[in-house]
């Protein structure tokens, strides 16, 4: 127990680091994922190709490789940013591919008739998408987006190995001080559980409020 109380400061710092990383990367992933999803259903071919390429490549890239390329490769490009910004970039881009697919699958759950009806009312592509299809897709998209963001929070642990302050990385400091290693990890695990459970609770709430009745 005193592993936690003695090192509360270290743990708190790591916990906040993970929280921050998760939050910013989620925002980036949601925004990019939305853009890519609209690219993928757009009537312009080159945008569709770009969106598809983005998703296919990123979904099949190991996240560790992406971190390696972004955190160690980009500085060689003359682009020098703090490590946590790079980490947000890597995590956000990676997750955006999955968000994009979740959104696209959500659009797919909207019955064809809805789109046809909108068109027969004379709506344009933009109007059909934003006024009819997306509001309905949003409802069925809540659970998969939630689980994608939970995965993001779990994936953020990789950043710790690339010199970013986050929860998993705290084990080094605490181990160096000679504390019981098993308990060190137990509290790290609790930290991650808190974050993932909080996200899943948030999305449960959202689903109850906006979700489709099935």
């Amino acid at each position, binding site marked *: 127990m005193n592993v936690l109380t003695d090192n509360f400061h270290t743990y708190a710092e790591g916990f906040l680091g993970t929280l921050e990383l998760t939050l910013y990367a989620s925002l980036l992933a949601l925004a990019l994922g939305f853009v890519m999803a609209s690219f993928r259903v757009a009537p*312009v071919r080159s*945008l569709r190709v770009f969106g598809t390429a983005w998703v296919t490549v990123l979904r099949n*890239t190991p996240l*560790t490789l992406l971190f390696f390329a972004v955190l160690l490769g980009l500085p060689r*490009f003359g682009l020098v940013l703090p490590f946590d910004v790079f980490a947000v970039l890597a995590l956000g881009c990676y997750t955006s591919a999955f968000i994009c697919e979740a959104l696209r699958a959500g659009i*797919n759950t909207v019955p064809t008739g809805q789109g046809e009806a909108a068109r027969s009312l004379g709506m344009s592509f933009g109007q*059909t998408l934003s006024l009819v299809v997306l509001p309905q897709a949003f409802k069925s998209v809540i659970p998969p987006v939630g689980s994608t963001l939970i*995965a993001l929070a779990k994936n953020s*642990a990789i950043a710790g190995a690339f010199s970013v302050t986050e929860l998993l990385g705290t084990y080094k400091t605490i181990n160096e001080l000679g504390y019981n290693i098993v308990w060190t990890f137990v509290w790290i695990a609790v930290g991650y559980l808190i974050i993932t459970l909080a996200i899943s609770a948030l999305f449960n709430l959202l689903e109850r409020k906006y979700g489709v009745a099935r």
Partner: protein
Amino acid sequence: MTEATALYDVPGPHTRRRHAVYGVLSTAVILALVAWLLYLLFDTGQFTYTKWMPFAYEGVQELLLRGLGNTLKAFAFAAVLSLALGGLLAAGRLSDHRTVRWPATLVVEFFRAMPVLVMIFFIFVALKVQPLPALVAGLTLYNGSVLAEVFRSGVNAVERGQREAAFALGMRKTQVMVHVLAPQAVRAMLPAIISQLVVALKDTSLGFLITYEEFLHAGKLIASNLDYDLPFIPVVMVISPIYIGMCMLLSWFAGWVSRREQRSPKTEAVVPATAGPGALLPGGEPPMAPRP
């Protein structure tokens, strides 16, 4: 641009012209981005002789191949063991005995909620295990738990009539599971199982972080050598196509199996896992693909 979709009308001549303009514009923007990227690559001297020369040497090639071999070895172990563990845990969760069901549920839920990396580090650091077994154990626990859920939902998705008919024929519980439910469930869930294996393949790269000498580790060794002018970008350019290619091949295989299974009469009794008719999107092979 000719695929029919419910999102927009078949474009008329005016719209088609407008779209063509958009198309040209966006293509130009994308090409400009690519050109700028290439310019940056040349400008920062990523194509110099010193940076690419190491790849011409046999020793370096062997180092990379050895790394790739280690990656595939870890993947093979993790895949086989997770399938076994997944089957075992699924059987536990489907058991009629509460004493078996509860622990299995607990294990599955716990390992699904934990980041894989925390498990791997725990096994490596706290249990003091060597890198390869630590990596394989971590991957097995996580992917095994996820696969258990896949198997379970597959069995539950088999039409009730199948089970009832089997019982009516006088089969025992185990017989029903082994001869009737499991074969259909596995067939129907094969795409999902393969996509989970893609996750396992991607996650073998976590071995890099616990100094398992896999593909990425070999790359880092070359990339951080001052003698070769720190070829980080060349290394990424060599390594990522191979990694991404392997994963895409496996993902594509999952998609192929999925399309085949949907036509197959042998999975008729299982609720289809992929999106059915009435989809809004053209040619949408819905996500039977890697999860994050």
